[in-house]
């Protein structure tokens, strides 16, 4: 019963992939195509192979004309058409150049993005590392033929073909940029900048009662990052790779934090309002929120604390069911073009993915501020990734707590 | 012994409207007293003031000689049967009847017994567990009666209680009500707009018109000797002769009333009996009503007179015929002119 259904499901997924391919595939065996696209995570210790660009028929080999529109799921600040700030606009030039009208649905969390992508109604997504593997495993996204994306050549090498954006050397999407989740603080309360996440976790925090926490299971990793410094005896080496003991310690820390929390924010606008109103005095944030709140007069600033931070390395991925694949390929090329990538990196407050962008930023020091090319800086930034039972840090003597358990634990904490 | 109910110059106004205008009334113990009048005449307002649902704008109301003008309904030894029965829909018949006793903290056993007895009196024994909506109109009527009587009030008020019943049931209930009144011996104050009902049931009647009492008296007095043109017209049917017509036909220049059944048909050439008066005219309408017929006559020289005569005496009389009417001279009664004749 089960296996029948599963192969049916696989067949359907494969058919969906095939249906959106712009160029009809050659006379290859359909079954082969289906197997390759729908079960990319079946890593039966197969040796590394070249990207199956031309011989599988699952990726386009050349681009046709744009379909007139493209439907994106994106983080706030990634797809700006001038409606937030007239000076911030890299969508209009794209629309004018390609004729592809851009429709954007903001995703408030990686979880939400996964859920939205599961509907199959979108062409692509700016997925963070904790969503990418889930999307690949679920067959929601398709591998990308980087030959059709000229700007891919200029992407920082240490962002290419990483664990979170490729499978067996096949790229699933193009790197967008990276950044760290920061500690935001009220400058009236903190006359000297705090330098530790302790302000958010310890009960004697100056901001106790007005701490603003990101409302997502992935935030458990932030507690783990803090524990890496404060409780080294736990032996945490990767905040997304926690055995049960380590996980329980992180949850205990979050329970302790609960007493001083003033806000759990899921919508970035909620935190922005709390920062502007002064009801949030310390919190975990994104640079873009800080920029928006400061523009409205909020007395705040943000730092990356000494313990390091969680962060993101985002990837534009194309849906396996994309209705407008040509426009999506054009978008992926556009968003990592030197100019657009520079603009989005500056606006969002992150390091660009394109090496050439550093010369085009309005602030000439942007790349150095955000440490775009400094490999050292990123060593204590832990990109969001999906926790799995198989420990990501290489341990084999224990199993790690998988993401579904993170979700349950977060639910329990919040209840 | 004081009167059961006494109204002294009672007045009630609603805004600019005078509903009850300086009414004086005395109702004796054990009477079956009817308040008769057309709708809007003030009779129901008087009843509601006696019950305490309305407070008089002026005057005083005494029960058994005690001033209760400003006493709330729940402190008056009076109970009411409402026009729409007002049974509590969420209670059984038994609970409805017991409710008043329960409120007065009568012990449960006694409550049971008295309610049971009262349901027997109104011939509803065995209906105690039913809900009001499972009863017919007549049965609901009797529950309402039992619910009021079980409290053993000194006076029972009945507000058009038979109005919602069909004719046959109404006649049955009239008989039954009188029987019950005799049995319990309580003063009944009965509001009705049906003069037949009032005449057949009451020991005395007060006739209301425009917020005032036109006449108080026994049914016979009211019918035979109406004091005003309104009473004469409202209670039964009557010929009303204004001063001018009276002067011509009766020889007395005051308004008179003359009951149609006192008028008889006389041969055009027959001698006039002693102590009788007569008038000639033209028959304009003959209504056959079974054993009696109603004859409408245009009198010579103006005026209309209606006669109620045995149908067999009408042989040969048809529309347009010349007829002669006569009546005993004492049948024509002087009446006061009412502000609003019928």
């Amino acid at each position, binding site marked *: 019963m089960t296996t029948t259904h599963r192969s049916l499901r696989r067949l359907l997924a494969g058919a969906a992939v095939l249906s959106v391919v712009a160029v009809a595939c050659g006379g290859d065996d359909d079954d082969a195509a289906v197997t390759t696209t729908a079960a990319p995570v079946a890593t039966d210790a197969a040796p590394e192979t070249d990207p199956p660009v031309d011989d599988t028929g699952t990726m386009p080999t050349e681009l046709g004309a744009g379909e007139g529109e493209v439907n994106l799921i994106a983080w706030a600040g990634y797809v700006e058409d001038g409606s937030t700030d007239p000076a911030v606009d890299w969508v209009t030039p794209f629309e004018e150049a390609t004729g592809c009208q851009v429709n954007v649905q903001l995703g408030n969390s990686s979880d939400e993005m996964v859920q939205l992508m599961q509907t199959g109604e979108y062409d692509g997504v700016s997925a963070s590392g904790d969503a990418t593997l889930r999307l690949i495993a679920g067959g929601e996204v398709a591998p990308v033929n980087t030959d059709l994306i000229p700007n891919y050549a200029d992407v920082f090498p240490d962002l290419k073909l990483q664990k979170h954006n490729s499978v067996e050397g096949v790229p699933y999407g193009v790197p967008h940029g990276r950044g760290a989740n920061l500690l935001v603080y009220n400058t009236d309360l903190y006359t000297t900048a705090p330098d530790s996440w302790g302000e958010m976790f310890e009960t004697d925090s100056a901001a106790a009662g007005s701490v603003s926490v990101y409302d997502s299971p992935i935030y458990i990793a932030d507690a783990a990052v803090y524990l890496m410094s404060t409780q080294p005896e736990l032996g945490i080496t990767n905040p997304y790779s926690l055995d049960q003991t380590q996980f329980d310690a992180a949850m205990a820390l979050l329970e302790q934090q609960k007493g001083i929390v003033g806000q759990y*924010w899921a919508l970035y606008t909620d935190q922005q309002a709390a920062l502007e109103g*002064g009801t949030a005095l310390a919190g975990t944030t994104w640079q873009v929120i800080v920029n928006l709140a400061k523009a409205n007069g909020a007395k705040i600033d943000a730092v990356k604390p000494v313990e390091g931070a969680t962060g993101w390395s985002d990837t534009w991925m194309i849906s396996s069911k994309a209705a407008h694949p040509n426009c999506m390929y054009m978008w992926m090329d556009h968003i990592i073009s030197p100019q657009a990538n520079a603009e989005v990196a500056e606006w969002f407050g992150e390091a660009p993915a394109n090496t050439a962008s550093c010369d085009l930023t309005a602030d000439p020091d942007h790349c150095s501020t955000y440490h775009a090319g400094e490999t050292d800086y990123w060593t204590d930034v832990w990109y969001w990734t999906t926790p799995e039972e198989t420990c990501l840090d290489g341990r084999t003597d224990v199993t790690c707590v998988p993401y579904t358990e993170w979700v349950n634990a977060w639910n329990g904490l919040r209840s | 012994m004081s009167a059961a109910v006494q109204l002294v110059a009672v007045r009630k106004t609603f805004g600019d409207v005078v509903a009850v205008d300086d009414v004086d009334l005395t109702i004796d113990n054990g009477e079956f007293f009817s308040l008769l009048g057309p709708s809007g005449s003030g009779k129901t307002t008087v009843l509601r003031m006696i019950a305490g*649902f309305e407070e008089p704008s002026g005057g005083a109301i005494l029960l058994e000689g005690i001033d209760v003008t400003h006493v709330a309904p729940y402190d008056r030894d009076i109970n009411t049967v409402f026009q729409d029965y007002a049974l509590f829909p969420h209670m059984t018949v038994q609970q409805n009847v017991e409710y008043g006793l329960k409120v007065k903290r009568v012990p449960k056993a006694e409550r049971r017994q008295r309610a049971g007895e009262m349901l027997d009196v109104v011939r509803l024994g065995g209906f105690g567990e039913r809900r009001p909506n499972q009863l017919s109109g007549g049965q609901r009527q009797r529950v309402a009666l039992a619910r009021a009587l079980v409290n053993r009030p000194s006076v029972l008020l009945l507000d058009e209680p038979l109005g919602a019943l069909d004719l046959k049931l109404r006649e049955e209930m009239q008989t039954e009500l009188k029987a019950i009144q005799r049995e319990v011996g309580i003063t009944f104050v009965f509001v009705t707009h049906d003069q037949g009902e009032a005449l057949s049931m009451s020991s005395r009647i007060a006739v209301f018109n425009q917020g005032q009492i036109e006449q108080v008296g026994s049914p016979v007095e009211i019918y035979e000797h109406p004091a005003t043109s309104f009473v004469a017209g409202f209670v039964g049917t009557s010929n009303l002769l204004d001063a001018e017509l009276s002067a011509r036909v009766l020889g007395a220049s005051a308004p008179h009333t003359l009951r149609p059944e006192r008028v008889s048909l006389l041969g055009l050439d027959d001698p006039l009996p002693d102590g009788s008066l007569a008038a000639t005219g033209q028959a304009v309408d003959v209504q056959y009503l079974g054993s009696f017929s109603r004859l409408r006559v245009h009198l010579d020289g103006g005026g209309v007179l209606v006669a109620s005569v045995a149908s067999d005496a009408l042989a040969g009389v048809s529309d347009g015929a010349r007829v002669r009417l006569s009546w005993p001279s004492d049948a024509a009664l002087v009446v006061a002119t009412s502000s609003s004749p019928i």
Partner: protein
Amino acid sequence: MRALGRFMRRHRRLSLASVLGAPVAWMLVIYIGSLAFMVVSAFFRLDGLSQKPTNELTGDNIKTAFTTWTYVEVVLKSVGVAVVVTTLCFVIALPAAFYISKVAAPWARRGLIVAMLLPLWAGYLVKGYAWKAMLRPGSEFGIDTGGGFLNATFGWTPGFGWIAVVLAESYLWLPYMILPIYAGLDRLPPSLLDASGDVGARPMRTFRSIVMPLLVPAIAAGSIFTFSLTLGDFITPNLVTEGKVQMIGNLIQRTLGAPNQPLAAAFTLWPLLIVIVYLAGMKRLGAFESI
């Protein structure tokens, strides 16, 4: 056309079926169908990696949803809030409806009914944000937070917590309690009140023994609205507590967003069962004759 009309008249049953058939079928498919699908999907196992439901059946979701104490606690707290809100609405609605129906002058009555219904016209989110603004504390740690109406007027605010949820929910759903009670009072024949006083009951006794029992169906009907609307709400609790308070609706939304559709479906069975039990109870009180 005329022939068709004649045919329809002759076959009433058929014409009734043709008129009502489509909407009824639509209702069955949409309402019952989606409900059934939800119940069924609670038994699907979630694939841990892709986070998509598989076709394997499992009772684990139900077990998790119904035996994990933290979740049961959320359910109990939600029911508690719904009960408190319903009670509060009742306590406010009864005198309000009584005043409108029995005390206010006829010309004022219409205005009061309009005033009572007017908040229903305002946007739900607007009202939520308005409460948030009203509840905002004045200052924390000496930092001006632009305190809200309550703080400015009374110098005190319950802040963003359970009390905030109860206040906002009570405000939101109050009209749904006033309306049926008002209608119930309006339907109450005045002669019943006279009759009760007539046999010796004082006003309080009349209220207790006559008015209240006859209002039970109306109150039950109103409570269905306040109870189920509160129980299912997740936007307002999130809004007026800065996300600190979680009700059953938040749990479902959060789980659905995880995404863990099967577990979310299992959680949904909680309010479904509670509301079914509640409706059954209210039906016994005659609520459905009063809607």
